[in-house]
C-alpha cells in the first residue's frame, strides 16, 4: 500500500525531525499549536506530521489528547548506552581471569543488544558491530535471543560467517532450544573458524531478569569438551556478579 520511499521529500523528513526535537525540548505535555508556533510550520502540516509520528509510536498523545510526549519507540533513535561497570564487578571478573587461561568477557544485555562492558584485554573479543549484528552466532547473543518471546525481532540477517555458522531459521531455533534446556550457551567456530565460546547468564536476584552474560573464549577443540568443572566455576562467578550488575 505504501509507495517505496523515494527520498525526495527532504523537507518533510527535516520537519518531522524538528517536531521530535521540539517535543524533547519543550517537555511532555506540549501541544500541537505550541509546536507549530515554535517551528513556524503551517498548522495543517504540523498536525499531519504529529499524527504520523504518533501512528509510528515515536510520540504518544497524553490522556487529555492535546499534549504530546516521547513514546517508548523513540528510545531506538539513541545509541544504546550500557551501564558503567562497578569496580567490585571488575574484581570478580579479574578473579576468574586469574584462574583460567581463556579469554574472559563480561557483556550487558540491558539495551537489548550484546554490549561488551568488560572485554578481556589480553584476548580481545570479536568486534562489537559483528556481535551486535549477528547475535545468533555468538554464545552471549544466544543467551539474549533465548530469552525473547520472538528471537526474530533481534536478528537482522542470517549470514554464514564461517562454514559452521547457524544460517537457517531451523538451526537457530534448535540452538536456542538447547540454550533454554541447558541454561548456558556454546558456539563452536561460528564467528571465527578456530575459536569457540561458552556463556552463562547473569540474572537479577529479585525477578530473575537477564541482565548480563559471562563468556569464556578459547580454541574450538577445548570448547567442545564437556567442561563441567569450568561451567561450575563460571556459574559461581556469575552468581557473585548478579547483585553487582542488576
Amino acid at each position, binding site marked *: *500500500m505504501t509507495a517505496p520511499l523515494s527520498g525526495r521529500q527532504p523537507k518533510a523528513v527535516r520537519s518531522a525531525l524538528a517536531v521530535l526535537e521540539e517535543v524533547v525540548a*519543550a*517537555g*511532555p*505535555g*506540549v*501541544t*500541537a*499549536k*505550541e509546536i507549530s508556533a515554535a517551528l513556524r510550520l503551517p*498548522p*495543517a502540516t504540523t*498536525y499531519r506530521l504529529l*499524527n504520523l509520528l*504518533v*501512528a*509510528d*509510536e515515536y510520540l*504518544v*498523545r*497524553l*490522556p*487529555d*489528547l*492535546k*499534549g504530546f*510526549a*516521547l*513514546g*517508548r519507540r*523513540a*528510545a531506538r533513535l539513541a545509541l544504546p548506552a550500557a551501564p558503567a561497570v562497578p569496580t567490585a564487578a571488575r574484581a570478580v571478573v579479574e578473579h576468574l581471569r586469574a584462574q583460567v587461561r581463556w579469554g574472559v568477557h563480561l557483556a550487558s544485555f540491558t539495551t537489548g543488544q550484546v554490549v561488551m562492558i568488560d572485554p578481556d584485554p589480553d584476548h580481545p573479543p570479536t568486534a562489537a558491530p559483528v556481535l551486535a549484528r549477528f547475535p545468533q552466532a555468538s554464545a552471549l547473543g544466544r543467551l539474549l535471543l533465548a530469552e525473547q518471546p520472538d528471537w526474530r525481532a533481534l536478528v537482522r540477517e542470517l549470514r554464514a560467517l564461517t562454514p559452521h555458522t547457524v544460517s537457517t531459521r531451523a538451526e537457530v531455533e534448535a540452538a536456542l532450544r538447547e540454550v533454554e534446556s541447558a541454561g548456558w550457551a556454546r558456539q563452536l567456530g561460528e564467528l571465527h573458524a578456530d575459536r569457540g565460546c561458552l556463556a552463562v547468564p547473569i540474572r537479577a536476584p529479585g525477578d530473575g531478569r537477564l541482565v548480563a552474560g559471562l563468556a569464556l573464549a578459547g580454541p574450538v577443540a577445548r570448547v567442545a569438551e564437556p567442561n563441567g568443572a569450568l561451567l561450575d566455576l563460571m556459574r559461581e562467578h556469575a552468581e557473585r556478579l548478579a547483585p553487582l550488575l542488576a
Partner: protein
Amino acid sequence: MAADVPPLRDRSPVEGLRRRGLGPLAVFAQSVSGAAPSAAMAATPVIVAASAGDATVVSFLAATLLMLLVAACIGQFTRRMAAPGGLYTLTAKGLPPGAAFACAVGLVVGYGLLAGGALAGAGQYLAEFAAMLGLRLGGPGTAAVVVVVAAGAAVLVRRGVRLSARVVLLVESAAIGLMVAVFALLLVNGPAPGPPADVPPPTVGGIAAGVVPAIAAFIGFEVATVLGAEARRPFRSVPRAVGATAALAGVLYLFAAQTQVFGFATTPGGLAAQQDPVLTLAVARGWVWVPLVLDVALVASFLACALASLTALSRVLFSLAKDGVAPAALGRAHPRHHTPHVALVAIVPVVVVLAGAVAAGVPIGHLLVVLITMATCGFLVSYVLVCAAAPLFLRRIGELTAGAVGAAAVTAPVLLVALVAFVVVSPLPSALLGALAVLGLAWYGWVRWARPAELAGIGVYDETLSTDVLGGPR
C-alpha cells in the same frame, strides 16, 4: 511551556481486551465484512434503480463520495485515539454526553440488528441452497438453521477476534471473488440483443432519492473502529481500514450497478422493473450454475457480516459497561480469550425474535429487509453525530483545520436528510424504530437518574499508559 502534565495511568481503563496485538489485515477484513459488499452488490442496485433509473451509477458515485467523507470525519478521531466503544466514544470527545449516549443507542441498535439481518440472510440462502439440493426446510427448519448459525458465530467471536478475523478474511474474500467473477462474465456478454429499452430519463430528484438506499449498502464499514484497543498500530490501521473499506465497497457497487444497468439496457422497464436481476441475467444466458454460486457467496458474506457485527456489538456494550452506564457484568472479559464474552448475550433476544418469526411462517427475506432497514437508521444516527462531533473535538484539542469543518458541513446535514427519508419511506420499520427509541429514552432516563456522574464522564478509551511513554516505568 507545557506546564501541567496530566497523570498517566498504569492500567488501561478498558482493561481485559488483548491490547495491541491485531495486524492491519485482520482489522481491514473486519471492516469489509461489516459492510458485506458481496451481498449488497446483488441486492442494492435494483433498489437504487427504482428511483434513479439509468443514472443508478451516479447515485452510487454520490453515496461513495459521501461515505469517503464520513470515513475522513471518523479518521480525525481514530488517528488520535483508540476506543473499543467505537463511534459513541469518539462522539463523546466532541459533543455533550447526551449526544454520545444517543450515538451509543444508535450503534447498539445498528450492530444488533445488522447481526440479526446477517443471520436472517445466512438462513435464507442456506435454505435456498438446501432447496436446490432437493431438501425443503420450511419455517421451523429454517429457524433451527438460524439458531445454529448464531450459536456458531457467538462461539467464534468468544474465542477471540484473531480467530474470527481469520475466518472472516477467508470467507469474505471468497464471497467477493465469486461475485466479481459472476458480474465480470455478465458484463463481458453484454445486454440481450434488441432495441434500447424505453426507460424514462432520470431526474435530479430521482438520483438524490437513489443515494439513500445506496448509503444503506455501506453500513458496517466502520466496524474497525471498535478494534482500536486491540490493533497493533491502531492510529494507522484503523483509519486506513475504514477509508479503504469505503473505497473498496464503492468500487464494487459501481461495478455491480453498471453491470446490471447495462445488462437490462434492452429490456422494457430496464433494471428497475426486475425482481431478481442477477439471476434473470444469468438464466437468460442459460447459466444454471450461477444461482448455486451466488448462494454460496451470499451465505459466506452474511456469515462474515454476522461475525463482524457481533464482534462490534460486544465491544460497544463492553465499553458502555466500563463507562458505568450499562450493567457491570457486560464489562467482564474472558480471562483466557480476552474477549467481552458476557456482552455477547445481547444477541439472544434478536435471535429469539428472529427465529420465532421465521418458525411462525413470516418470510425470512421480508425479515431481512426490515432488519437491515432498521439497522441502517441506527447507523445513520451515529454517523450524523460522529461527523458533527469531529470539528468540535478538533477545536477542543486545538487542531482544527478548514478541511475538517468542510467534511462535517457536508456529511452531517446530508446524512440527516437521508435518515429522515429512510424513516419516512418505510412505515413498518418506523413503528418498530419508534418502540426502540422509547426503550433507548427509558435507558437514558434511568442513567440520568441513577448514574449522573458516570453519564457526565462517558467515553472511556484506551489511553496512553505510563509504560507507553519513554522514561516511564518498564
